[in-house]
């Protein structure tokens, strides 16, 4: 009974899933997507929301079927596809590092904007928040579920009010203020660029063993959480743009929501939004760092990563993984550009969700259309993203493809070497 009480109930699962997505997502991607899709930004969120919803279904379906925590890596291990499991897990870890870097980047920009900090301050804050969370994790503080739920609730409340207030000031000119109206199809390219805004829900698949009666609650709760976030993103996209105007959201894409709040409500609005963004991004960094480090340890324990990664400190924390992942993310946050980080992460998560949807399609006997829909929309979105990267960031795309090639070729070599030693 006591054990059951310590488990995550439906409300907690809902809050963690919604917070995991909203935590860094909307704060960082709005400016990128408005530049591409303008008045069709809401459609971009809807298109990618379909992938998120179908993937959430597939994640829960496979978690319930295998009764296993660990997400895509664990599912592939269950179906004895060790090669893909290993390669995908490496790719996924890179995706999480990119995600943490995006959150840290957003944290630095939002907090520095509140006191008009310089570029140096932005970098110091981005690196500083990761350093503090590395230290907290090493000290064994780890995942602060209750604190996270409080932060998520406050964060969601601020966003819901901002969206509702923006919609109450209905003015469609603001959706294209200072820019040219965009065609309908731009919604697809916009969605492709920011898919990472939806990745957070799948961190719950790493907590499967902590969820109360997962066979009963996990599916409906996760689907409701994802649907809520899809609707919230669409409403925030329209509401915030109606308050701030498209041009300002694009010009200040790193701090779009703070600028909107400042334009609409003055300093008080800006401070509230800065607090919401600061807490939300730091909570998202913490939960992603914690989950990724534990994933890295379990992958290393299954010999798909060098044993070096499974080392733990006195608090049973995978210290080397936490330090390495955190440092890599901090370096990327300090040196990278927002859209490059977001798009690279989006590409990795589109691949991962595609694999999970494919597994669910293969393993299920009914409702096969759900993962199939996810695969179809995901493939179209992935092609759009590759097309966009090939034109606007060919060097970054080349680097990504080289990295994938290195993983596919280098991983077996490293594993062999690791095994023989």
């Amino acid at each position, binding site marked *: 009974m006591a054990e059951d009480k310590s488990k995550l109930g439906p409300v907690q699962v809902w809050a963690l899933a919604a917070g995991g997505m909203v935590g860094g997502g909307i704060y960082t991607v709005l400016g990128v997507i*408005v530049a591409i899709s303008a008045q069709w930004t809401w459609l971009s969120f809807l298109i990618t929301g379909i992938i998120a919803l179908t993937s959430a279904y597939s994640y829960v379906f496979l978690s319930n079927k295998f009764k296993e925590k660990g997400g895509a890596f664990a599912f592939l291990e269950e179906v004895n596809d060790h090669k893909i499991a290993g390669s995908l897990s490496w790719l996924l870890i890179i995706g999480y590092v990119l995600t943490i870097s995006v959150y840290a980047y957003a944290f630095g920009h939002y907090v520095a904007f509140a006191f*008009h900090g310089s570029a140096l301050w932005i970098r110091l804050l981005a690196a500083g928040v990761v350093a503090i969370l590395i230290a907290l994790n090493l000290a064994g503080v780890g995942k602060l579920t209750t604190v996270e739920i409080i932060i998520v609730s406050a964060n969601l409340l601020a966003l819901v009010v901002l969206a509702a207030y923006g919609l109450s000031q209905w003015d469609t000119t603001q959706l294209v203020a200072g820019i040219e109206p965009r065609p309908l199809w*731009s919604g697809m390219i916009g969605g492709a660029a920011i898919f990472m805004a939806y990745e957070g829900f799948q961190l719950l698949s790493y907590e499967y063993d902590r969820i109360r009666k997962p066979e009963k609650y996990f599916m409906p709760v996760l689907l409701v959480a994802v649907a809520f976030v899809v609707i919230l993103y669409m409403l925030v996209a329209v509401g915030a743009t109606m308050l701030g105007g*498209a041009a300002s959201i694009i010009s200040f894409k790193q701090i779009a929501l703070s600028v909107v709040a400042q334009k609409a409500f*003055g300093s008080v609005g800006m401070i509230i939004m800065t607090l919401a963004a600061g807490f939300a991004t730091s909570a998202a960094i913490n939960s992603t760092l914690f989950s990724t480090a534990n994933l890295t340890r379990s992958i290393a324990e299954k010999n798909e990563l060098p044993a070096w990664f499974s080392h733990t400190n006195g608090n049973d924390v995978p210290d080397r993984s936490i330090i390495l992942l955190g440092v890599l993310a901090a370096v990327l946050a300090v040196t990278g550009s927002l859209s490059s980080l977001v798009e690279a992460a989006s590409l990795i998560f589109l691949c991962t969700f595609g694999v999970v949807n494919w597994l669910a399609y293969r393993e299920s006997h009914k409702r096969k259309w759900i993962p199939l829909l996810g695969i179809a929309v995901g493939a179209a979105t992935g092609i759009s993203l590759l097309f966009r990267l090939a034109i606007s960031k060919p060097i970054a795309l080349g680097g990504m493809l080289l990295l994938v090639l290195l993983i596919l070729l280098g991983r077996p070599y490293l594993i062999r070497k690791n095994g023989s030693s």
Partner: protein
Amino acid sequence: MRYVICFLTVWVCFSACKNKPSDENARLRIGQFLGYNNPAIIIISKDGKDVLREEYRAGLLTHYHSFSPGIYRIRVLRKAQPLLEKKVGLGPGGIYTLCLTGTPLPAQDINKQTVRDQLMHLVEGAAGITKNGYLPQLLVLNDYFSLTGKNTGIRFLNMAEGMEPVDVEIKDSNADSKMEISHNSYPLISNVETLQAGKYSFTLTYSGGPGIILEQPVHLEPRKLYTFFITGACDNEKQVLKLVSGSSKN
């Protein structure tokens, strides 16, 4: 019930702090930087009616005009030849600069674009700005800014097509401190840099080159955003480039 109370409380807080723009109209100024000193006729219309029709000489930055919010059709003509046409939204309280740049061809099509420019607009939308083969293009700058106290903001926009990227060194005449905004390449705008209001001198050099192209003293007032357009000088002027500046106030 708790959530509804929280929602209403935050709503009331936000509503109480609402910023009502003093002027709900949008403000728009025009920077005419078409190459080879081409004069251009700019026609701005809304719902089929012309609200502005003026001929502007090259190198001119106008004052802000006031427009009621809405979606406008902007046309640019050289004599009777249409060069550019674009629809742009002007939001309530918005503040923008319409920049006209590039060099028209003798008998070019309207909105002539290179393939690269077309593709970049396809995938990047409003952020997809390219050189467009130095062909004419209309850029819309957002002049909204956020500054406090005695701070002032500056940014540079290279409108000199065909020229090398330019570095700008900014020296404070009192404290002898230096700042550099480097590699301003056509037709991109730099980030806004924040400075204390006061007297400064700008030194322009080609990126990586030692030779000074232009030196200019400036006086910057607090809480204003200064945009400096780097343009080609006229044939009868001594220097190669010149700075056209304009200030914006929220």
